[in-house]
């Protein structure tokens, strides 16, 4: 397309303004976390007159955020590694093995993606209650250990890899297990990294599962902890924002580190 010089300048200004509008709430979140707690509602005076770093220490002490960080980290890592493992194994079976019921099983696996978790939360809770798992790490981890999307992702990825590599190894007597870990997984590293980021960020950010499946203080994750903190501190925005900042840092940091991979993952799969 041919564009005039004036048009280009206009687009540049417009693009910058729009991007600033999008990032502004997050910048203001940081600014407010550094305000004097007494006048954090701010009005239009958006920058703190004097920087109060103390809000962070106070917010951290006010609730048991240390424990909540450990809970969230543990749950997110267990779910993420669990999903990668189960997806690699199942994806490999679907991509490379002939077995009875392959097509039917693959269709069933894909069908599990249709209904959002929110719709099935009641029976899942019933199952967890019967297992005696409510208020345990198991409740937050086990129901998420397998995910159709990951299986689909790896199955599709493995199909793009030529057989020759595996065939040579097979002649040397390598088992399926060895083939998967020694040959295919190293090639699948970008896909593994993508799934890791998506799953970890989704789990770290999740409120719904901990809200429904846990009620004790000790089991609170950071997001659930934030909502409780919000109920206690209502309009003490400086403290609230300090808490929001340190809960937000891990997922945003991970995104910044793997941004290219992350965005490419969405563009090629539409994953969420």
């Amino acid at each position, binding site marked *: 397309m041919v564009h005039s010089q004036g048009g280009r300048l206009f687009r540049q200004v417009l693009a910058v303004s729009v991007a600033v509008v999008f990032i502004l709430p997050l910048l203001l979140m940081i600014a407010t976390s550094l305000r004097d707690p007494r006048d954090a509602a701010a009005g239009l005076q958006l920058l703190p007159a004097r920087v109060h770093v103390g809000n962070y220490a106070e917010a951290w002490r006010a609730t048991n955020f240390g424990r909540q960080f450990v809970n969230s980290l543990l749950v997110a890592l267990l779910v993420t590694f669990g999903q990668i493992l189960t997806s690699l194994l199942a994806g490999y079976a679907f991509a490379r093995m*002939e077995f009875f019921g392959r097509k039917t099983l693959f269709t069933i696996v894909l069908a599990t993606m249709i209904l959002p978790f929110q719709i099935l939360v009641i029976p899942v809770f019933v199952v967890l209650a019967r297992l005696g798992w409510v208020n345990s790490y198991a409740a937050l981890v086990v129901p998420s250990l397998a995910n159709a999307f990951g299986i689909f992702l790896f199955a599709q990825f493995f199909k793009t890899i030529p057989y020759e590599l595996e065939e040579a190894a097979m002649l040397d007597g390598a088992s399926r297990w060895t083939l998967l870990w020694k040959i295919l997984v190293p090639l699948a590293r970008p896909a593994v990294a993508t799934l890791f980021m998506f799953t970890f960020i989704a789990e770290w950010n999740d409120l719904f599962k901990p809200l429904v499946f846990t009620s004790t203080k000790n089991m609170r994750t950071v997001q659930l902890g934030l909502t409780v903190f919000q109920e206690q501190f209502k309009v003490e925005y400086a403290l609230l924002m300090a808490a929001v900042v340190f809960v937000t840092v891990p997922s945003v940091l991970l995104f910044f580190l793997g941004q290219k991979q992350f965005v490419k993952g969405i563009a090629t799969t539409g994953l969420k």
Partner: protein
Amino acid sequence: MSAHGRDTRTAYLFLLPALLPLAVFVLYPVVNLLWTSLHRSDILRNELTFLGLANYRALFAGEDFGRAAWNTLYYVAATVPLGMAVSLGLALLLNTEIRGLGLLRTMVFTPVVTSAVAAGIVFVWLLDERGPASALLALFGVKAQRWLQSEVWAMPAVVLMSVWKQAGYNMVLFLAGLQAIPETYYEAAALDGAGSPWRAFRHVTWPLLWPTTFFVLVMSVIQAFRAFEPMYVMTRGGPVGSTTTLVYFIFDRAFKYGDMGQAAAASVLLAVVVLGITWVQFRVRRDA
């Protein structure tokens, strides 16, 4: 034996770790949900009393379910077109040659990876009676008010936050769609006299982008139907139930009032809607 050999036993061993959780926590729950919706369910005593369709009748007899269904439609009808227009606009704007493109895209995308809880709390502050939004509007003579405590303004506020948080994600999908359109099409259109930006958009971009647009549409609709966290964090479904959507209603009934049967019935009805949308999507894609 070839790499594509027949080894049913090994295959099942590889599938088991994935299929077991899916069976217990997705497939069985589908059946259990239907079953629960036909019963009065006391989870604590593990007792079920068969009610037939009474839970469904109770939903339609009461006002709350209808209100929640209406609120859901409101939320879907507002977030989806608005969100799509914003993200398509962003993609068009950030698909041109300008300075700092990568940084600008990152700025738009960052809200996607912040949690809904964090984003919701930030918006609660922004929309506080004494907060920046009210102060800004006061410059235009709009009286400051407690936006999130207003039955009229609470839902638009939730919609605003959702659109802001989601736009970057859909922008990435639209960008991928735009970049898949060959430049030669625009050159050909320019030769045919469709050189103005608007005509190029109408005759080249829009028709060729349609598969992406349709995909984003379906994803956005389902995403909007399942939304829960924005309402929970910003308004707790209030004021006076004005932001209680169906998922919120289900959560409330099941886990606040312990009425699993009625909540299950509402879940079944919501599932029917989601299945309907998925079915339409398959039909359209097959016919295309």
